[in-house]
């Protein structure tokens, strides 16, 4: 936002659980109209951050503002939330649950009919008690309850878990449409392909510490390239001495795989001079590779 455009603004968020660290000095801003991914393996602090954003836990330090207001004072009807490990009221029918949550939200469920159709939830399905639902159906109801009142901010904790591939596809398309409408999405996931596919920016959290917040394309541009070289002669591959800052990941006969920081590109090309090259593939890293780089604690990645 300029702060006028920030939907979520987290500053110095710290939460400890006894001796165990939850999150430490986490800070990020989610802009209006973007899909912001929050990445980390289990136990890294993703859910704790979401809890702090939603006001479910009280941080020891720091603050979160949503739509410019402290998390404890915001109008929650502007938020839709799909919890991780979703749990619903099993004795209610789907219809009862959606009506009840709509009544609590105090906003008409304008999107409900369209969402039910989109996620193939029939009227008969909704009249059955939730305890008889499959995991996928529960997840669909979880998505509908979060979106039915047309919230401006969606907070999603591992939202595609339990959805079949078709429904996942539908769900990602829906998120894209929401972004196009100017809605904001904060999504936590450990499925990197999911995040890479839909997010504009990501934050990566490790052991409770935020290690980076960046646009995915910028992250990829900044990260070391993977270079696959196929020499005409095997000797060239084994004899190749990488320039400083470049690492050899694999040597396999005439093939050589290097990790090359962007600023070492020219040096590497120079190092190839005088050798006969049969093939050369220069690849941008995937988000998964970037993520693993951060998790290995490689300083070159930052």
């Amino acid at each position, binding site marked *: 936002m300029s702060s006028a455009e920030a939907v979520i603004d987290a500053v110095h968020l710290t939460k400890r659980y006894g001796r165990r660290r939850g999150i430490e000095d986490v800070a990020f801003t989610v802009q209006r109209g973007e899909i912001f991914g929050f990445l980390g393996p289990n136990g890294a602090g993703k859910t704790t951050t979401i809890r702090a954003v939603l006001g479910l836990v009280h941080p020891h330090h720091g603050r979160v503002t949503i739509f410019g207001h402290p998390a404890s004072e915001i109008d929650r009807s502007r938020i839709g939330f799909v919890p991780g490990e979703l749990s619903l009221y099993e*004795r209610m029918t789907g219809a009862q649950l959606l009506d009840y949550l709509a009544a609590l939200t105090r906003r008409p469920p304008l999107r409900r009919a369209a969402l039910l159709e989109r996620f193939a939830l029939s009227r008969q399905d909704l009249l059955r008690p939730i305890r008889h639902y499959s995991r996928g159906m529960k997840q669909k109801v979880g998505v509908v309850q979060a979106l039915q009142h047309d919230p401006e901010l969606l907070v999603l904790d591992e939202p595609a878990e339990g959805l079949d591939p078709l429904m996942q596809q539908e769900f990602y398309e829906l998120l894209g449409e929401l972004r196009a409408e100017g809605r904001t999405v904060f999504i936590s996931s450990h499925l990197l392909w999911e995040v890479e596919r839909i997010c504009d920016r990501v934050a990566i959290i490790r052991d409770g510490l935020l290690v980076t917040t960046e646009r995915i394309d910028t992250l990829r541009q900044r990260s070391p390239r993977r270079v696959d070289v196929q020499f005409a002669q095997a000797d060239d591959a084994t004899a190749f001495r990488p320039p400083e800052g470049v690492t050899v990941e694999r040597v396999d006969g005439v093939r050589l795989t290097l990790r090359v920081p962007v600023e070492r590109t020219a040096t590497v090309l120079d190092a190839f001079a005088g050798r006969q090259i049969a093939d050369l593939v220069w690849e941008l890293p995937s988000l998964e590779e970037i993520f693993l780089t951060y998790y290995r604690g490689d300083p070159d990645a930052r």
Partner: protein
Amino acid sequence: MRAELRRRLWFTLRALGIYCAAIVLFEYLLVVVYETLGTQTLGPVLQMLPPGIQALLGNENARLLTPEGFLAFLFMHPFVLVLLSAFPIAFASGALAGEVERRTIALILTRPISRRQVAGSVALTMTIGVATMCAALWGGLAVVTRIRGFGPINLVAFSWAAASAAAAFWAVGGVALLSSAAASEAGRAGGVSAAFTLASYVADYVAKLSPHWAWLKRYSLFAYWDPQGVVARGGVIWSDVAVLLGVAVLTVLLGIVVFDRRDVAV
């Protein structure tokens, strides 16, 4: 808050109905037993019991041998006590700690309803439930004695006994609400509340056994609840009712504050 209260009441109705039906059925059975045995059989049996057991039954001055005394004993019967305690403990434990444990609380707390309203709706439903059970206790008595022609009994005195029961078990519910507000597992919250209630009952009983133990009375909720005395007097001791209501109000308010301030890790 209305939607939240409606949901809680709706899903409590069936359990509450079962509790109330059990109370009325038990009243009916006890009246039939009394009629069948008669005072000629009951009297000698009661006189043979050790003083400690007679104190437990509230048979001071052979109260149990009058129809009113016997029916007043019903209020203190362990079965009725268990029912009157079980509802507020089970409901309050399941409603807050249970929802945190099942993680369903996240669906509510991320909506425009404050934690105070959530805890308040639990307190209100628990209060309505306890009041309904105590009304069933009195209403069942009125109907059963009329059907069986049992009596004469002073129904007004029993209405005071039922009202004081509501105050006592509202206090039990308040303790359960407080325990539930602080816990993240229904079993733990219910266990703490049940242990408190049982300890309170035992303290009152032990205090009746010997003057040496009389000091325990002041630590027991049940010391301030004497339905047999209420029926005998035809009215309540207001200071006792005030203590029970004070405990109830204090624990409910404390429960609401605790739930408002705690972390909900779901």
